[in-house]
């Protein structure tokens, strides 16, 4: 059986799904007042060696130009946007809302995988406020809903909660990393014995061991967290998170939000609220974000901001339901005999000017394309025929053809 290759063309299908996803995301970002920007593909390597971020320098794709300077293929977007702003403003002139859809390039050290991935995200430069933070988290959730996910969970944490504990205990950098690893893995089994190697008081150890399981309904979790609070700042953090949660409830997101105080700074530059989003049947977070009030300081400017980014490829993989409609047929297929090439080109151009999709072929090559078309035209020296469904009508001029097209449309 002969298969219509074009109708099943996976490249086209994949791109349609990609394009539709991006379009949905763009539309949602715009409704919250974000404006699209782009950043250069090539960035200075030094830009990234200067900033504390989670991007492993060994994962970046480096390029050495003629002068011997090292550039990298854009490994991230938040850092260059902040740098660009910092070059122009020593402090935030007014609230700024940007969004981007761009490719980033990283070569994972452990996994074989694609170097290139599309990120869609927003950066909202503004002072910290529960309203602003909640709005950004709501936007993240809203975007996932638009894409058709039904089971959406956003885990919210706070960079300073864990940081406060770190300040109270004396550990070197390698030990802090190990501690972070244990908390991120919610590995309570080994957390206690690990901390007991050091000179840390038992009540602090008990408190830290509690952190990983401070997970779930925000009100209930914060009540449990109050019991291990050590500093005023921790109390304030909990108050703040509850305030954000109360606003998220007003957005109708009560069932999508969980508090996870074991969620700690996965990007070096996050300073306050951090969050990540999960959807049904997909094993990795599909979006990550947080507030980074001090990234601007690295470039000598005061630019508080909050943002998040989605990995578009992850979203596509997570969208298991094939929501892509079957390929739409093209509008018009135009067949002509060799002598009428000139006339057929004229007609095809006039129709394309009017936004019809037209494919034209000499009669004898008609079989090289197997796509369905709504209308068919046959241009020969004898006559010109317009075919729609089972009806054939001959026509003399372009005007007559356009009338026929309009008539057929009316009948549809």
């Amino acid at each position: 059986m002969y298969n219509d290759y074009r109708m099943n063309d996976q490249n086209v299908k994949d791109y349609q799904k990609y394009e539709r996803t991006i379009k949905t995301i763009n539309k949602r970002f715009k409704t919250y007042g974000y404006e699209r920007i782009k950043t250069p593909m090539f960035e200075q390597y030094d830009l990234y060696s200067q900033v504390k971020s989670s991007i492993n320098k060994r994962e970046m794709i480096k390029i050495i130009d003629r002068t011997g300077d090292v550039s990298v293929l854009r490994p991230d977007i938040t850092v260059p946007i902040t740098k660009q702003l910092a070059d122009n403003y020593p402090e935030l002139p007014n609230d700024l809302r940007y969004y981007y859809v761009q490719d980033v390039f990283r070569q994972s050290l452990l996994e074989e995988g694609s170097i290139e991935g599309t990120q869609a995200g927003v950066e909202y430069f503004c002072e910290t406020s529960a309203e602003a933070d909640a709005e950004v988290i709501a936007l993240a959730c809203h975007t996932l809903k638009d894409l058709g996910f039904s089971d959406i969970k956003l885990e919210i944490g706070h960079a300073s909660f864990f940081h406060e504990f770190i300040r109270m205990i004396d550990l070197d950098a390698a030990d802090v990393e190990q501690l972070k690893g244990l908390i991120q893995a919610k590995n309570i089994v080994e957390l206690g014995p690990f901390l007991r190697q050091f000179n840390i008081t038992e009540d602090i150890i008990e408190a830290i061991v509690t952190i990983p399981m401070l997970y779930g309904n925000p009100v209930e979790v914060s009540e449990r967290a109050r019991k291990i609070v050590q500093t005023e700042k921790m109390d304030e953090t909990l108050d703040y998170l509850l305030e954000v949660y109360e606003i998220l409830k007003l957005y109708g997101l009560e069932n999508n939000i969980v508090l996870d105080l074991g969620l700690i700074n996965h990007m070096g530059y996050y300073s306050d609220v951090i969050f990540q989003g999960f959807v049904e049947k997909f094993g990795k977070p599909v979006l990550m974000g947080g507030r980074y009030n001090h990234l601007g300081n690295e470039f000598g400017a005061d630019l508080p901001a909050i943002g998040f980014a989605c990995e578009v490829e992850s979203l596509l993989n997570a969208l298991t339901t094939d929501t892509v409609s079957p390929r739409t047929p093209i509008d018009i297929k135009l067949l002509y005999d060799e002598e009428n090439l000139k006339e057929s080109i004229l007609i095809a151009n006039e129709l394309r000017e009017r936004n019809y999709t037209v494919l034209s072929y000499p009669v004898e090559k008609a079989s090289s394309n197997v796509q369905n078309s709504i209308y068919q035209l046959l241009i020969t020296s004898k006559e010109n025929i317009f075919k729609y469904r089972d009806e054939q009508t001959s026509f003399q001029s372009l005007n007559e053809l356009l009338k026929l097209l309009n008539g057929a449309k009316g009948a549809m």
Partner: protein
Amino acid sequence: MDYLTLAIATGRTSKQAMKLLEQAGLNFPDYNNKSRKLVIYDETKTVKLIFVKTADLTTYVEKGAADVGIIGKDTIMEEQPDVYELVDLNFGKCQVVVAGFPTRKIRNGAPITVATKYPLITKAFFDRKGIRVETIKLNGSIELAPLIGLSEVIVDIVETGTTLKENGLVVLDKIVDISARLIVNKASFATKTYQIEQFISKLKAVLE
């Protein structure tokens, strides 16, 4: 409601894992040691059990193909999956050790050749000690390597030490104690929180 997908490694720990599940009130009628079924369900149709190779288990859980998995700490240390490691199941207890001939001294100098199933654990351990090593990755019968001169020492798991003793080898250094752990996919923990909590509390009831 969706099944909770549990992955169990075929091999060393699978019998003990099944025993634990049974004690926790999860019965799998299709389970018997001779069955070759790779996917089975419990009586209440809440848990779907899959059997996978030990080395692949962390991948299944990390990618979300399984929500939870039971696996030895040795494999977790070697594969370093990005998952939650929630419960120590207290079985499959053994040690990862450096073993070799009793005369062999481990000290710095020329690189020591080490045969092992665990190159990552090996490297991390010797790096910490500041000893240079060359690792040779083997997949089984690690004890054979020093006997025929393939390596000077080995890094392997030891339960009773019988195999070592019969081959004239001794434990030179202990790296870490291990046991079976319950690992959980991070996304599943977010989207199936209630199911996973129920499952864990059933297991914990048996362990206590």
